């Protein structure tokens, strides 16, 4: 046998997998029928929609805020770049769950929110609790926290663009903002998009923290069912199946977005399609295969 360690490992994994499958079939505590019963019910579907809404809105705030923070961070103006640094320091340095609860309880600090002159007369005033629902609090907390992470991603993307690009744009008489929009950001996208996809997938799961302030998202809806039925793990498995389905769809979407922003980056216009890439990954990701063709491994 050429690879005894590999074979032993494979046997152990196969046995464990067989035991797991066996438990799926034999153990009635999985309540597969109950799971199937609930998986497409109204509350769960509503929860899925709310989870998607939370994810999309928080990511929109995160991306827009992240770009603004990154540009501010790279600004020659020390107040702008300092403020951006401070923001990132605070929002990345504290737990997002703590931030969620803080936004939820904002009325403790500011019972009223109003529009008007700073330190001067106010024009419109709202009651904070009526303005910021628990859903809004979750969106704000998740989005503003995400902006701090996106800022670092965007900044790294902007810095990855060759300085010659900015010089060429300047030499053509393009101003700073035009250069940023038309020349730097589109190229930075190639570096920004892959981690942003990961952030989105991560956000989809992190949004479950909103259950802590009773936002009726997927996890919260699952918990509602659990509190009535006392069937814990099966319902959580069902919820996990939904999360897995959604993250899988996002992964596929990520592939196409990445391909779009890869335009011009490759000498040949067409890149491998998804099935081709999966095949290659399966075929070539085994170590040594492509590194030492024909070599005895």
């Amino acid at each position, binding site marked *: 046998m050429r690879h005894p360690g590999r074979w032993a490992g494979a046997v152990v994994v196969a046995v464990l997998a067989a035991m797991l499958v066996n438990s799926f079939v034999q153990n009635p505590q999985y309540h597969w029928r109950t799971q199937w019963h609930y998986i497409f019910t109204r509350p769960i579907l509503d929860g899925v929609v709310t989870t998607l809404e939370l994810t999309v809105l928080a990511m929109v705030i995160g991306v827009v805020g992240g770009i603004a923070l990154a540009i501010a961070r790279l600004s020659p103006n020390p107040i702008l770049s300092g403020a951006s640094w401070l923001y990132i320091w605070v929002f990345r340095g504290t737990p997002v769950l703590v931030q969620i609860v803080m936004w939820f309880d904002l009325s403790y600090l500011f019972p009223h929110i109003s529009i008007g002159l700073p330190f001067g007369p106010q024009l419109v005033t709202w009651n904070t609790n009526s303005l910021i629902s628990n859903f809004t609090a979750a969106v704000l907390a998740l989005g503003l926290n995400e902006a701090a992470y996106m800022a670092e991603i965007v900044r790294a993307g902007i810095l990855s663009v060759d300085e010659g690009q900015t010089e*060429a744009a300047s*030499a053509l008489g393009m*101003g700073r903002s035009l250069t940023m929009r038309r020349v730097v950001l*589109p190229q930075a996208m190639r570096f920004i998009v892959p981690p942003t996809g990961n952030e989105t997938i991560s956000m989809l799961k992190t949004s479950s923290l909103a259950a802590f302030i009773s936002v009726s998202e997927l996890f919260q809806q699952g918990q509602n069912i659990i509190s009535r039925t006392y069937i814990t793990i099966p319902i959580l498995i069902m919820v996990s199946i939904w999360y897995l389905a959604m993250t899988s769809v996002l992964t596929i979407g990520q592939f196409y977005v990445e391909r779009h922003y890869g*335009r*011009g980056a490759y*000498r040949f216009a067409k890149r491998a399609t998804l099935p081709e890439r999966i095949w290659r990954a399966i075929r070539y990701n085994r170590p040594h295969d492509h590194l030492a063709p024909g070599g005895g491994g």
Partner: protein
Amino acid sequence: MTAMVKAEAVHKAFGFNHVLRGIELEVQRGEVMCVVGPSGSGKSTLLRCINHLETIDSGRLMVDGELVGYRERGERLYEMKPRDIARQRANVGMVFQHFNLFPHMTALGNIIEAPCRVKRLPRDQAEERGLALLAQVGLAGRENSYPRQLSGGQQQRVAIARALAMEPKLMLFDEPTSALDPELVGEVLAVMRDLAKSGMTMFVVTHEMGFAREVGDQLVFMDGGIVVESGTPRDVIENPQHERTRAFLSKVL
């Protein structure tokens, strides 16, 4: 008539590195000025100062009678607002050693970007002119190619077309053939030769002595941040007056 480029006692230092030590030169309208010199002589820095990609520390640098990047108030010079600097740059074309084409835009996209966004030319007009410029640099039919799909020589010719699209009154070339494979140098020089014949004022930092001799109206030899010698290319190349010029020429000819 005012000179197209005029430098008076231009000084520039990066920290303690005094790169330009009092440059004096003048380029007349329609002239081709070639600048040669060893690396580190300050020739590229001087070229970048003409487009205000670098600031200058003292002296006066003028393009078409207008101070580059500064406004004079009383005895003092103040740096211009970014908008005014951009307006000045739009009148001066620049071609870089490494082309610096925008890789996410097609050849035509590269060419029409500034005319559309800076000069606000209607898109169809800009495209029409862009196609004509591509034909002028010998790349008709390649308008939809991305830079990565073009050879170095082709990319540099697109870069020249991109600079020309802004209808500049002066073209700056920063070692335009230094990054090219030897067999691709000729095609770029041919485009530059045609451009010179059409009457464009050109300021060319180069190592191509053949081009300088054939096309240049003036040849400047720079070393250590000063103009060591200048004159007609024939005079400077065949009858150099300074030891440093002779030493340099003996290496590059």
